[in-house]
């Protein structure tokens, strides 16, 4: 009662604290959104693949870029114990020309139609085995390139230029910080290696597998689960560490700011707390009122920061070169709960001060 009444009667004072918390909550949400956006850019296409595990060549250090599998190794993987379904996948990075004339890069992913590696088409049609020069373009690729279904683009790889036609649109995400484009594996292997190796060279970069208990190493290959595969994408580990550090600092600073504000308020109210204790208020009651104030202020701060973050995201996405920020419901929920918890932790110092208040202060005496 007393805590809530004080907020209502001292609106200006508490509004100032709440406004600072709005900024802290907004900052933490933007950092979290940046973390998710960067992860999506790094390899959402990999995370969206319909696989339990990924097989790399054993000498690749779990790098899709460096992994090269022969037909023999692919066969070994596909017949390994526990593997129910599997599909070889090829990868290459290539440059292409946007409709605006500028040069950009895309992640080319080669797959076999009818396998677990085949992406889901959301517009247009799927590739068939006859579509040697057809591609499925991810939504992000179409947005960035300015192209649409039916358009052709020139892809450059290994000093060669190849014209490919967009036949369908998919929504699988990005790979290696590049928008993804899917084409027949045979086409990509030709593009990547040419005919110089005459069928004796690599036929895939990795193999996707489905099945229980497939994680193992074999002759010339290594199987890892999907999360491990994602974590080993070049740059992801460092990026995640950076984002996590920023998140951590955001929470810590938020807790400290709330803690300092309420600590100062508590110090100012020591005579009042002493008087309340003299009247017979328990420590539990006084600290309870303090925590209610923290929850209300943090709640208001979080509630106001949410639409701010959403509006900022919409604004950023409308820019020509969109910023990699993405929000999810679970991220919002987690962030809100974490901010509330850190605010309460920040109030611990105030609670300790309340415990130390001597009610004799209310009588104006010193012991």
């Amino acid at each position, binding site marked *: *009662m*007393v805590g809530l*009444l*004080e907020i209502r*009667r*001292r609106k200006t004072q508490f509004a100032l604290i709440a406004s600072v918390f709005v900024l802290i909550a907004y900052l933490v949400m933007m950092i979290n959104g940046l973390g998710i956006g960067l992860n999506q850019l790094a390899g959402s296409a990999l995370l969206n693949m319909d696989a339990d595990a990924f097989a790399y060549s054993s000498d690749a250090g779990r790098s899709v870029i460096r992994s090269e599998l022969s037909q023999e190794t692919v066969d070994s993987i596909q017949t390994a114990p526990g593997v129910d379904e599997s599909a070889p996948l090829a990868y290459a990075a290539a440059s292409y020309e946007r409709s605006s004339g500028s040069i950009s890069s895309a992640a080319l992913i080669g797959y076999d139609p009818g396998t677990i590696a085949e992406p889901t088409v959301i517009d247009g049609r799927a590739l068939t085995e006859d579509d040697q020069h057809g591609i499925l373009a991810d939504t992000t690729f179409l947005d960035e390139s300015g192209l649409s279904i039916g358009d052709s683009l020139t892809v450059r790889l290994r000093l060669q230029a190849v014209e490919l036609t967009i036949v369908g649109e998919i929504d699988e995400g990005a790979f290696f910080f590049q928008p993804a484009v899917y084409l027949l594996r045979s086409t990509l292997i030709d593009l990547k290696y040419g005919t110089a190796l005459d069928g004796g060279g690599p036929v895939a970069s990795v193999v996707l597998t489905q099945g229980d208990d497939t994680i193992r190493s074999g002759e010339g290959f290594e199987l890892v689960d999907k999360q491990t595969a994602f974590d080993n994408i070049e740059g992801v580990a460092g990026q995640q560490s950076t984002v996590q550090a920023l998140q951590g600092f955001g929470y810590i600073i938020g807790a400290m700011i709330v803690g300092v504000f309420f600590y100062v308020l508590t110090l100012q109210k020591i*005579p*009042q707390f002493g*008087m*309340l*204790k*003299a*009247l*017979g*208020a*328990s*420590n539990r*009651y006084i600290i309870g009122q303090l925590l209610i104030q923290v929850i209300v202020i943090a709640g208001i701060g979080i509630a106001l920061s949410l639409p701010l973050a959403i509006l900022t995201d919409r604004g950023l996405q409308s820019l020509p070169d969109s910023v990699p920020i993405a929000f999810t419901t679970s991220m919002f929920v987690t962030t809100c709960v974490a901010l509330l918890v850190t605010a309460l932790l920040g109030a611990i110092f105030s609670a300790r001060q309340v415990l130390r208040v001597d*009610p*004799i202060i*209310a*009588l*104006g*005496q010193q*012991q």
Partner: protein
Amino acid sequence: MTGLLEITNLTKTYGSGEQAVQAVRNISLTADGGEFIAVIGPSGSGKTTLLAMVGGLLTPTDGKITVSGRDIARLSSSQLAEFRRQSIGYVFQANNLLPYLTARENLLVMRAIGAGRGASKERADQLLNELGLEKRANAAATELSGGERQRVAIARALMNDPELVLVDEPTASLDSSRGKQVVELLIEETKARNKLAIMVTHDLDMAVKADRIFEMRDGVLSEHTG
């Protein structure tokens, strides 16, 4: 003979060894409901220390204080808080109202902190009426005059229907006319409710209105007779 309040050989010593100071020395007193007691003495005589011990705010060094047969000197801090909440009404020297609450809300703080015995909104309004504050019930504490604030403090002290009302220098921040009104009101309200009231004051003109007058000097209590 047992009374509502019994103080036996009460002592309070600050510090130790050569630095030790006895603020209260071996005091004994028995008092009952319906009595209005004044304790006078100069500053530093120990009268507020005595009041604080009776109100469960200070632990005695030695001796016993029983209120309705309960030895409060042996209670834990949470038990003392409960004791103050249920059995003590305090009127502080500086009234100590919460400035951001109204007159009524300052009374309802007693309900909020868990004081029982009907510390309700109805009781708050009844007390405000009796003390002539019905028109000021919704005024913020900062808008009240000094005399009004003291009356609100008196009403707050009676909200939990306490056994014991302790009053610390109620006229300190008031002019003589208002001070006289406040003391007369205190006497009227506590006697009407058969409460035992102890008022600490340095003002002899106010003290003479009490049923019993004690003088405190250098920690020693003596009763004025006649």
